[in-house]
């Protein structure tokens, strides 16, 4: 251990660290643009200059290793003067277009202009003009004028995305960030440079100009794009998801997430393909009905069959709570053992985040004891042995074999957030909440249980009473405000639908929240033993390795 003094306070720190890392560990912020904990040190922004005793000149904290007895000053007069100078230089050619810039509100340069600059410019000459709206790739647009040449994106492309196509050309104040000729930055992880960029130079093609950051609420959740379960924030305005951003979790995804997860997993929540209300099929026509009627139709439909004739398909897209309630219903209420789920894989695991398993919860469904061998159910449907099927949130009919089999069924009940090939064949369709509308847990490929939280309100939820993250607009909207009237869907979490169905079939359950369901799940499933919503927290918790004890009679 090395003893160092930062701003007259003594700390014991690991001698391998740099000054900026040691200071960060002790909660002392040294301003920086180009330094990033997951990228190599470039040392080109000069913002992290600090005064170190016995060194003739100021030193950059990101590239100076800690030494025993080192005395560092981060707020001395010399340091402040240097910070002012660096900020003044950076702002010489940086356009003052914060009102137009999407980064405003979460911009490092903007924040530092308040914290570390004198707030005035002595530069009267014209600013340098450079290309605007330059597409680096399909998902990232560059505004070269705003770039402060920190090179974070260049290093990210080289070191993390392994697609080294970004570089600087020209010199001095004419420096331009660009791609190598005839290449584009189309890595599956390209959009991470948007958060990495300390200014508004790199913006998302998808989110550009959609909303100011302070208008949205942000909710901690988990990406449902694959079995990695990257930690994310869901950004919502007027009950509509506008963007997803990665949330740091060193055990799962570090600071990153893939473009596919970021762009491909929230648009279905906003519609327009959602199931708008429960419906049943009467004389080959879809008839929209209320919840009670739909539940009653599902219950009476299932009651018409013997328990051996009914099968259930759980879903790796649904939460553990939903699958547990479903399993409990099929075993205890219906009394069938024909329960399985379908796996969904595509491509291969890559070496950063992306997993071949495209479902967020396969590990959880397996931990509940549900197998993925659905072939026997498929065979028995084709044989005519199974005549009715109850399926959770999964588009089973996307698979042609299953589509043919579903057509042979006499009765099909489906939970689904969206209208799809399966709902086309169903007799009763119950609109299920999406991952962004409910509490629940998923188990990722590492067997890590992670929580999701509601960010979008359904018709029966109230943002304030149900503890949602609230933007200023959410707090104050009244009936005569148009911005309070974002679309709300009539959907319910699957565990609640299953509970209603159990009630309609004569078995009353008393779950009031997803947390209740999880508590019972944790009591009954050995892998989940001892876990509670509170202990899972924002970082997730690993499942226990089950020690199956053979019962002695």
């Amino acid at each position, binding site marked *: 251990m090395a003893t160092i003094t930062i701003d007259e306070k003594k700390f014991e720190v690991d001698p391998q660290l740099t000054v900026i890392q040691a200071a960060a560990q002790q909660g002392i912020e040294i301003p920086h643009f180009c330094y990033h904990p997951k990228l190599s040190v470039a040392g080109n922004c000069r913002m992290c200059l600090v005064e170190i005793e016995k060194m003739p000149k100021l030193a950059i904290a990101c590239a100076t290793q800690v030494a025993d007895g080192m005395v560092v000053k981060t707020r001395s007069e010399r340091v402040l003067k240097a910070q002012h100078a660096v900020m003044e230089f950076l702002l010489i050619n940086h356009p003052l277009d914060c009102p137009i810039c999407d980064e405003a509100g979460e911009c490092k340069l903007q924040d530092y202009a308040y914290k570390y600059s004198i707030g005035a410019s002595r530069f009267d000459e014209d600013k340098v003009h450079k290309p605007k709206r330059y597409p680096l790739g399909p998902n990232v647009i560059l505004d070269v004028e705003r770039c402060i040449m920190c090179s974070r994106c260049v290093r990210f492309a080289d070191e993390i995305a392994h697609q080294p196509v970004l570089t600087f050309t020209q010199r001095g104040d004419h420096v331009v960030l660009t791609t190598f000729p005839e290449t584009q930055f189309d890595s599956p992880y390209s959009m991470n440079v948007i958060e990495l960029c300390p200014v508004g130079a790199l913006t998302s093609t998808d989110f550009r100009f959609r909303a100011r950051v302070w208008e949205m609420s942000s909710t901690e959740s988990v990406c449902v794009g694959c079995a990695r379960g990257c930690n994310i924030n869901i950004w919502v305005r007027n009950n509509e998801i506008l963007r997803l951003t990665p949330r740091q979790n060193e055990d799962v995804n570090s600071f990153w997430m893939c473009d596919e997860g970021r762009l491909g997993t929230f648009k279905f929540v906003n519609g327009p393909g959602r199931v708008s209300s429960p419906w049943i099929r009467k004389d080959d026509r879809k008839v929209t009905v209320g919840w009670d009627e739909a539940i009653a139709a599902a219950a009476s439909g299932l009651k018409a069959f013997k328990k051996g004739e009914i099968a259930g398909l759980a879903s790796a897209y649904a939460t553990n709570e939903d699958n547990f309630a479903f399993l409990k219903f099929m075993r205890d209420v219906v009394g069938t053992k024909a329960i399985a789920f379908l796996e969904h894989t595509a491509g291969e695991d890559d070496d950063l985040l992306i997993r071949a398993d495209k479902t967020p919860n396969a590990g959880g469904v397996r931990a509940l004891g549900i197998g993925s061998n659905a072939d026997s159910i498929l065979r028995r449907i084709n044989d005519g042995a199974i005549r009715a099927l109850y399926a959770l949130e999964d588009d089973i009919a996307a698979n042609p074999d299953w589509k043919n089999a579903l057509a042979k069924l006499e009765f099909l009940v489906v939970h689904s957030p969206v209208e799809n090939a399966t709902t086309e064949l169903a007799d009763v369709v119950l609109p299920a909440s999406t991952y962004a509308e409910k509490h629940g847990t998923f188990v990722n490929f590492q067997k890590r249980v992670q929580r999701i939280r509601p960010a979008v309100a359904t018709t029966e939820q109230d943002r304030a009473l149900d503890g949602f993250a609230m933007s200023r607009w959410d707090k104050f909207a009244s009936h005569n*405000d*148009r911005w309070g009237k974002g679309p709300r869907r009539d959907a319910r979490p699957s565990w609640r639908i299953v509970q209603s169905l159990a009630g309609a079939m004569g078995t009353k359950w008393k779950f009031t929240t997803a947390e209740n369901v999880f508590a019972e799940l944790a009591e009954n499933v050995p892998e989940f033993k001892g876990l509670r919503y509170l202990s899972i927290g924002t970082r997730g918790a690993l499942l226990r390795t089950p020690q199956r004890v053979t019962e002695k009679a």
Partner: protein
Amino acid sequence: MSQNGKMIRKEDLSFWQRIYIPEILKGLRLTFMALFRRKITIQYPEKRFTPPDSFRGRPVLVEENGVERCVACGLCSRVCPALAIEVQANETALEKERYPEKFEINMVRCIFCGFCEEVCPEEAIIMSKEYELVFESQEEAVFGKDKLLVPIEKVRDRLEFLHKHR
């Protein structure tokens, strides 16, 4: 009023005040004189009040060269203490890059404080001299761009006033 409830006057009324008639005449004299003073009442709606440049009437959006100056930064919406303003931005091919696809002011919420005008970095939203606001429903009170946009020629007075008192 004293503590024991007895009425105390600084001065008792004089004889002439007590007989009442002269005081009435004094009052009538004042009323009669007002007939010959400059008239303040305006015969609205036949005649209309022209407010001074400092007047804060309903907020409007300045239209210059056929487009709004507004870049949809949303600062007016953020600063508005009554949350009257909703802005939805989008991209434009113009140099300003960003424009308000939707700009709505709920005039039932607006309190005419002028903060939106003060915060605007583009002098795009300013307080006009218009004070006649009549709605028959809540929906009608939400003014969109169609009602808010005003050509710059019509609001020169206010812009000059703002420049003078910046």
